[in-house]
C-alpha cells in the first residue's frame, strides 16, 4: 500500500542517487542522468495514481497536523511530477547551450546538477501541495525557491542570466521575509500556525482583527510574488527572459501552480475577514490589465510569455476570488499543457534562430510540425474553443458570472481581446511572413513524442474535461 508521503521520499531519494552517480561515475554521458530522472519520476507518477486520498481528520498533533493527503494535494503532486518530467525533456534539448556557456574546457561538467536540481524542486512542489501548516508551507517554499536560485543562474557566463539570477535572488528573499513576518503576526494574533486552527481562532470575535489583517496582507504579498500578481510582478519579465528557457518554463508553471495551491489553502482563514476579499478583487483586476496590456508591444517571445504568465495569473485570481477551486485547478492544468508546449517549441527554435518573434518567421514552411505545435499552444493560450485553454476560461467566467463579479467579467472580456492580438502575432510570424533561412529544424524523437502528447492532451481536454473534474471529486 502506497501512502502519499512515500511519493516525496521516493523523489528525494531519486534526486540524491542522481547526484551521487554524477559525482562518482565521471565517464558516462550525462544525458543518461536525465533519462534516469525522467524514468524515475514517471514511476512515481504512476504510483501516485494508486494513492487513496484521505483528508487528515486528526489534526491535533504529529505529522498529519501539517501534512494532508486530500484529493487536491494528490492532484497537485501529479501536476508537479508531470511538469518536472516535461521540463527534463526540454532540458535534454537545451543541454548544448548549457555545455557551451558553462565550461569551454570540461565538456558536460555541469550537466549533472542541471538535471538533478529540478528533481529536488519537484519534491518541494509536492510538499507544498500537501502543506496545511504555515511552518511547513514556509519550509517547502524554501526548498523550491533555493533550488530555483541555482537553476535560474545556471548559464552564469551569460550576463543576462546573471542579472536575472541576482534579481530573482534579491526579490525572492525579500518576499520570503514578508512571508515569515506575516506568519509571525498571524501566530501572534491567533497563537496557531495550522490553517484549520487559525480559521477557528479567527471566528472568535475577541481577536485583534487589524493585526490579523496586517499579517494576512504580508502573506499575500509573498504569495503574490510567487504567482506573479501585480504589483509584485516586477521581477517576472527580466528573470523569465534571462533564465535558461527550460527553467523559465518551470518557473512559470511549477512555481506559479504551487503559489496557487497555497493560496487556495490559506483562502479559508483569509476570507474570515471581508477586507481580504476586496483586496484580492483589486489585485486580480490590476493583474489582468497590466499583464495583457504590457504583453501587447513585446517583440521577444520569451518576454511575451512572461507577460502572458502574469495575465494568466489574473484569470486564475478571478477563480480564486470566486472561491471556485475546481475552475482554478482546471485552468492550471490547461495552463501547464499549453505553456510547456510553447516553451518546448521555443527551446528548439531558439537554438537555431533566436527567441524574438521575428525569428519564428516562416516556421510554417521550415518545420510544419513545430509550427503546428506552436499554433495549438498559442490558440489555446488565447482561448479558442476545442482547446483546454478555452474551457479553463469558460469555467473561470462561469464562476465569475455566478457570483455576479461584474467588474472582473468586464475586464476579463476586454483583456481576452488583447490576448488574441499578442498570441496570434506569433501565428502570424510563423505562417504569413517569409524568411530567407529555409533549412529544416531537427527534432529529437523524445521531444516529438512529448509535444504530440501535449497537443493531443490540449485538444482532448478541450472537448472532454471530465477526467480532471472527476480527479478532484474523489
Amino acid at each position: 500500500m502506497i501512502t502519499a508521503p512515500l511519493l516525496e521520499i521516493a523523489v528525494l531519494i531519486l534526486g540524491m542517487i542522481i547526484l551521487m552517480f554524477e559525482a562518482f561515475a565521471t565517464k558516462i554521458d550525462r544525458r543518461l542522468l536525465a533519462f534516469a530522472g525522467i524514468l524515475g519520476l514517471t514511476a512515481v507518477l504512476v504510483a501516485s495514481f494508486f494513492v487513496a486520498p484521505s483528508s487528515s481528520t486528526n489534526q491535533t498533533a504529529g505529522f498529519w497536523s501539517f501534512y494532508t493527503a486530500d484529493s487536491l494535494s494528490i492532484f497537485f503532486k501529479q501536476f508537479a511530477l508531470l511538469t518536472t518530467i516535461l521540463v527534463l525533456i526540454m532540458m535534454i534539448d537545451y543541454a548544448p547551450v548549457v555545455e557551451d556557456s558553462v565550461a569551454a574546457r570540461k565538456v558536460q561538467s555541469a550537466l549533472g546538477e542541471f538535471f538533478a536540481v529540478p528533481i529536488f524542486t519537484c519534491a518541494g512542489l509536492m510538499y507544498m501541495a500537501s502543506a496545511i501548516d504555515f511552518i511547513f508551507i514556509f519550509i517547502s517554499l524554501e526548498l523550491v525557491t533555493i533550488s530555483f536560485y541555482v537553476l535560474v543562474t545556471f548559464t552564469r557566463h551569460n550576463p543576462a542570466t546573471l542579472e536575472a539570477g541576482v534579481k530573482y535572488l534579491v526579490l525572492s528573499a525579500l518576499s520570503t521575509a514578508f512571508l515569515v513576518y506575516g506568519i509571525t503576526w498571524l501566530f501572534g494574533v491567533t497563537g496557531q500556525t495550522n490553517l484549520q486552527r487559525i480559521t477557528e481562532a479567527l471566528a472568535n470575535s475577541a481577536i485583534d482583527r487589524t493585526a490579523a489583517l496586517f499579517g494576512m496582507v504580508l502573506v499575500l504579498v509573498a504569495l503574490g510574488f510567487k504567482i506573479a500578481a501585480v504589483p509584485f510582478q516586477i521581477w517576472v519579465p527580466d528573470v523569465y527572459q534571462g533564465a535558461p528557457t527550460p527553467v523559465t518554463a518551470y518557473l512559470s508553471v511549477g512555481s506559479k501552480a504551487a503559489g496557487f495551491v497555497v493560496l487556495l489553502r490559506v483562502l479559508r482563514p483569509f476570507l474570515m475577514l471581508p477586507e481580504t476579499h476586496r483586496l484580492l478583487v483589486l489585485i486580480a483586476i490590476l493583474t489582468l490589465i497590466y499583464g495583457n496590456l504590457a504583453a501587447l508591444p513585446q517583440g521577444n517571445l520569451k518576454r511575451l510569455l512572461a507577460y502572458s504568465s502574469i495575465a494568466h495569473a489574473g484569470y486564475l485570481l478571478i477563480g480564486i476570488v470566486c472561491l471556485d477551486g475546481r475552475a482554478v485547478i482546471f485552468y492550471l492544468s490547461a495552463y501547464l499543457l499549453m505553456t510547456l508546449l510553447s516553451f518546448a517549441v521555443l527551446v528548439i527554435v531558439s537554438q537555431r534562430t533566436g527567441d524574438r518573434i521575428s525569428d519564428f518567421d516562416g516556421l510554417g514552411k521550415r518545420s510544419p510540425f513545430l509550427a503546428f505545435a506552436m499554433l495549438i499552444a498559442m490558440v489555446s493560450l488565447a482561448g479558442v474553443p476545442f482547446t483546454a485553454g478555452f474551457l479553463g476560461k469558460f469555467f473561470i467566467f462561469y464562476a465569475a458570472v455566478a457570483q455576479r463579479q461584474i467588474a472582473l467579467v468586464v475586464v476579463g472580456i476586454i483583456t481576452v481581446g488583447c490576448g488574441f492580438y499578442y498570441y496570434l502575432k506569433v501565428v502570424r510570424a510563423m505562417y504569413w511572413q517569409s524568411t530567407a533561412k529555409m533549412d529544416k529544424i531537427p527534432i529529437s524523437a523524445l521531444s516529438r513524442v512529448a509535444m504530440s502528447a501535449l497537443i493531443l492532451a490540449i485538444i482532448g481536454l478541450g472537448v472532454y474535461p471530465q477526467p480532471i473534474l472527476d480527479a478532484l471529486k474523489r
Partner: protein
Amino acid sequence: MLLFIIFCPITAAILIMAGAPARKTALIAAMLTLATALFLLGSLPVWQGDFQQVTSFSISSEWHWGFTTGLDGLSMVMVLLATIVTLAAVWFTGKIDKYENAFYGCLLLISGGAIGAFASIDLFFFYAFHELALIPTFLLIGIWGSGNKTAAAWKITIYLAIGSFILLLGLILLYQSVPVASRSFDIRALKAAAGQISPDAQRHIYLLLLIGFGILISLFPFHTWAPEAYASAPAPAAMLHAGVLKKFGLYGLLRLAIPLLPDGARHWTSLLVVLLLGNIIYVGLVTIAQKRLDWMLGYSSVMHMGYIFLGIASANVLGVTGATALMFAHGLSIALLFAIAGEIRKRTGTLLLDDLGGLAKVMPFAGLAFGLGTFAVIGLPGFANFAGEIMIFFGAFKNGWEMERFHLFQIATVLGLWGVVISTVYMLRAYRKTFMGTLAERWKDLIDLRPILRAPVAFLVGALLCYGFFPQSFVRIITPAFRPYLSVNK
C-alpha cells in the same frame, strides 16, 4: 448521416493538411456533404417541427452537457445553405500558389465549423463549432488576402473574438438563469425550462446575446470589420464567411433569443429597430459611396442584414420565416457575387469601379452571372430574395397593427422599403460601371470564365431560382420550427 455531414469536411481538412491531394479531396468531400444534405432534406420529416436524427454523447452528466446533434426545419435550411456554398467556394478556388493544402484545409474547416454549429443542439458545441472558423479566417485573410490584409485580418479576428466572448457570457447567464435542477446545455431542455427565467434576467441575457451575436452579424454600429475583411479576403473565404458564417449569429437569435427570451426580446425591440434601420439606411448610403467593387459588396452584405433583423424583430411567424428565407437567399446571392468579383480581380488585378467597364463584351458569361446576382440582391420577383423580403415586410407591417400604440414597426417598414431603392441604386450602378460602357484598351484580352467554372455559377443561380419560384416548399419546413412559441402574437 448528420454526423457524416459535420465531420466529412473536418476529416477532409485534416487529410489535406496531412498531405492528401488538396483540390480533389476537397471537391469530393464537398460533393459528398451536399449529396447527404439533399438526401436528408428529401427523407427526413423536418416539417414536423421537432428535431430529427438526434444523436447524443454525454460529456458531463453533472453539467448536463453532451455532444448532441439534430436537425429541424430551420437548421436543415441552414445546413443546406452551408453545403451548397461550400461546394461553390471549393470549386471556385482553383490553383493556389503557396500552401495550397492549407488553403483548402482552412476552407473546409470553416465549412465544417458552420455546419457543426447549425446542427448542434448542445449550447456548448453550438458556440464552439462557430469559433472553429476563427483561426482559419485569420490565416486565409492574412496569408492569401490582398489589399490592406494585415489590418483586415486583425480587425475581424479581434472583433469576432470579443463578440464571441460577450456571447459566451450571455450563454453562461442563460444557463444559470434557470433553476439548478433543470440546468442543461441541451437547447430542448432549456426551452422546456424557459418559462422559469424571470423577465428581469431575460432582459440582461437578451441584451448580451444581441450584442454578442450582433458583432458576429455586423449589426450597426458593430459592422466596421465586415466590409474591410470581405474586401481583403480571397474570394472563396469571402463567399463562405459572408454567405454562411455570418448567418450563424442570426441563426442563434432565431434559435435561442426569440424562443427562450420573449420578454427580453419585447423589451429591446425598439433598440433593435433603431439599430437595424442604421444597417439599412446608413450603411446603405455608405454603400452607394463606395468606389471599389469588393468594398461595395462587403457593405451591401452588411446592409442586407438589416432586413433579416427586421424579420427577427417582428417576432411573428411570417416575419421570422421571411428572415430565414432571406438568410438562405442572401447566402447564395452574395456568394455568387463575391465569386464573380474574385474572378475579375484574378484577371484584372483591380476592382476600382472607375478602372473597369465594358467587361461584358469580353466576359459575357461573367456579366450574365453577375447580372443575375444583382437582380437577386435587389429582390426581383422570381429570385429567392424577393420571397424572403416580401414576407419580412408583410410580417413587420402586420406586427405594428397589433401593438396598438406608436406604430414603430410601420415606420420601420416604410423606411426599410427605401432600402430596396438604395440597393437598386448601388447594385445597378456597380453593374453598369463594371460590365457596361466602353471597354478599356488594356482589358481587350481578358478571357471569360472557363466552362468548368460555369457549373458552380449555374448551381447557385439554379438554387436561387428554384427557391424563388417555389418558396412554399421551403416555408413548409421552416414554419413549424417557429409555430409553437410565436403563435401568440400571430
